[in-house]
C-alpha cells in the first residue's frame, strides 16, 4: 500500500476516469465459472479484472490429524496461496506471512455463512489458488471460495460476497486494482453475507477521514451486492442453465 504523494494524480484523469477507463464507482469485469475441477467436491474459477483464481472445496471429510476434530461441528480449514508465476517478480512458493494472514481472514470470512454444526467430526478444506494476481485477490478469492462451497453442497446461510473500496489520488473509488493498490492511499476490502448485511471480513490499509471511511464502506457494500448477483447467476447457470452440462449425480 502506497503512501500519500508520489505521482498519484495521473491515476484519475480530468474526466474522473481511472487508468483502465473505469468511473470511480465501477467494478472491473468479472467472470465466474462453477464446477470446472472434477476431483474437487466443489470448485469455482473467477476472473476479477486481471485476477485469475481457482477455488476448490474438499469435504466434509475425515479429519487428519484426528485430535483436531470437533465433536459438535466441522473444522473449516483454508489455504490461500499464490502461484510463483502469478506476480511480476517470481513469488517464492513457500507460504509467506501475508498468505498465512490472508488464509486466516478468508476462513473467518467464510465461516459465519456455513452451518458447520451439520457435519460433526469432519473437516472441510478450502483451497484458494491465485494463478494471476491483480489488486483485490483476497476479495476475489473469498467470492470464488463461497461459490465453490455452494457447489460442494455445504449447508450455508448465505453466500459470502467480497469487494474492496479505496482511496486513489485523493478520491474514494470502488474496486482497487493492482496499480491503484500500490500507488493509492487506502484499501478497504470487505466481505458480507448480502441477505443480512453482516460483515464477515474487513481490513483497512491507509488513511481515510471520517467521511471518506463512511463513503468507502458504503461503496464496498454496494460492490459486494453486485458481486453477489454474479455469484448467483453463475450457480444458476451451472445447475439450471440451458446450455450447461446436466448436474452429475453421484453414485
Amino acid at each position: 500500500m502506497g503512501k500519500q504523494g508520489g505521482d498519484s494524480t495521473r491515476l484519475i484523469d480530468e474526466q474522473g476516469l481511472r487508468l483502465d477507463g473505469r468511473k470511480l464507482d465501477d467494478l472491473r469485469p468479472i467472470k465466474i465459472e462453477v464446477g470446472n475441477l472434477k476431483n474437487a467436491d466443489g470448485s469455482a474459477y473467477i476472473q476479477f479484472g486481471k485476477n485469475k483464481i481457482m477455488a476448490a472445496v474438499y469435504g466434509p471429510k475425515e479429519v487428519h490429524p484426528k485430535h483436531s476434530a470437533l465433536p459438535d461441528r466441522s473444522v473449516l480449514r483454508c489455504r490461500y496461496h499464490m502461484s510463483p508465476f502469478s506476480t511480476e517478480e517470481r513469488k517464492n512458493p513457500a507460504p509467506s506471512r501475508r498468505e498465512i494472514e490472508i488464509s486466516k481472514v478468508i476462513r473467518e470470512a467464510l465461516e459465519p455463512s456455513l452451518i458447520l454444526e451439520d457435519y460433526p467430526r469432519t473437516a472441510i478444506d478450502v483451497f484458494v489458488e491465485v494463478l494471476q494476481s491483480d489488486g483485490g485477490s483476497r476479495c476475489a478469492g473469498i467470492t470464488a471460495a463461497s461459490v465453490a462451497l455452494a457447489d460442494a453442497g455445504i449447508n450455508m446461510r448465505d453466500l459470502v460476497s467480497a469487494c474492496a473500496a479505496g482511496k486513489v489520488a485523493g478520491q474514494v473509488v470502488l474496486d482497487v486494482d493492482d496499480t491503484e493498490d500500490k500507488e493509492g492511499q487506502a484499501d478497504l476490502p470487505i466481505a458480507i453475507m448480502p441477505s443480512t448485511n453482516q460483515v464477515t471480513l474487513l481490513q483497512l490499509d491507509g488513511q481515510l477521514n471520517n467521511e471518506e471511511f463512511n463513503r468507502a464502506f458504503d461503496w464496498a457494500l454496494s460492490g459486494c451486492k453486485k458481486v453477489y448477483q454474479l455469484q448467483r447467476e453463475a450457480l444458476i447457470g451451472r445447475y439450471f442453465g440451458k446450455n450447461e452440462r446436466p448436474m452429475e449425480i453421484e453414485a
Partner: protein
Amino acid sequence: MSAVKKIFVVEQLRRTQMSELLSRGIRLDGRGFSDARELSIETNVIEKAEGSARVKLGNTELIAGVKANLGTPFPDTPDKGLLVVSAEVLPLASPYAEPGPPDESTIELARVVDRGVRESGMIDVSKLVLVAGKHVYAVFVDVSILNVDGNLFDATSYAVVASLLTAKIPKYILDEKGLPVKTDEMVPLPIQTVPVSMTMARIGDHLLLDPTTEEEALMEARITFVSDDRGNICAGQKGMPGSLTTDMVLQAASTARLKGEETRLLIKRAVSNA
C-alpha cells in the same frame, strides 16, 4: 473425554452468566462497554535497545524493543528506510502458549500492529535514507509478550509506538570513499504522528472495548481500528469466525477515534516523562 465435556459445560455457564450481565450493561470486571483497562507505560527499560517500552494493559503485559542498523532498501522502494514489526507470545506468557514458530494468530497480530504504524505514517521512512537505493536505516521493533490477558493487539501497538517515540538510533555518515560509518551520535526517529489502536469484541449485540481473555473466549468477532492524531482511520482488521452488522462497524470506527484520543494523551504523557 470427560475433560472436554466439563469445559463445554463451564463455557456454557460463563456464556449465560456473561450475556445476562451484559444485557444489564455490566462487564465481569465492572467496566463500562467503552472503557479500556488501566494502561501503564514505562520507557527505556532495556538499556541495550535503541528504544524500549514495557506496557501493562490490565494484566496483559509485554515489552517492545527497537534495534536499528543500516540495511539495503527493497528494490521497489529505494528511497525509503525499513520498518519491521514482529511479535512473539513467549511460552511463559500463558498456560496455553507453546514454544515454536509463530502461529497464524501471532503473525496476524504482528502484521496488524505493523500496518497501523506503517499506514499512519508515524515514522517518515523517506528520512531514513543515507544513499537512495543503497544504504537506508532498518528499524526493527520486536515485541515479547510476557503475560496474556486479552487484547494483545492494542497492548502490542502501544508498546511499539512508545518504544519508537523514545528510540534514539545511531547516526551513520559517509566517509571520504563514500562508505557508511557509524558515529557515536544518537538521533531520534522522524516522528509524524502517534497512531492509536482500539480493539473491540462483539459478544451478542454488544461491542466491548479492550476485551480480557475471559471476554475473548466468548467473543464472536473482533474488530480493530487504528487512528492517527488528525482523526483519520489508518488501519483496520476484523477477526474471529463471526460477523458484525454494518452499524457495529461504523460504531467501532467512531469509538476508535474518540477513545483513541484519550489513549493518545496517555501515551504522550508517558513518553514525555521518560
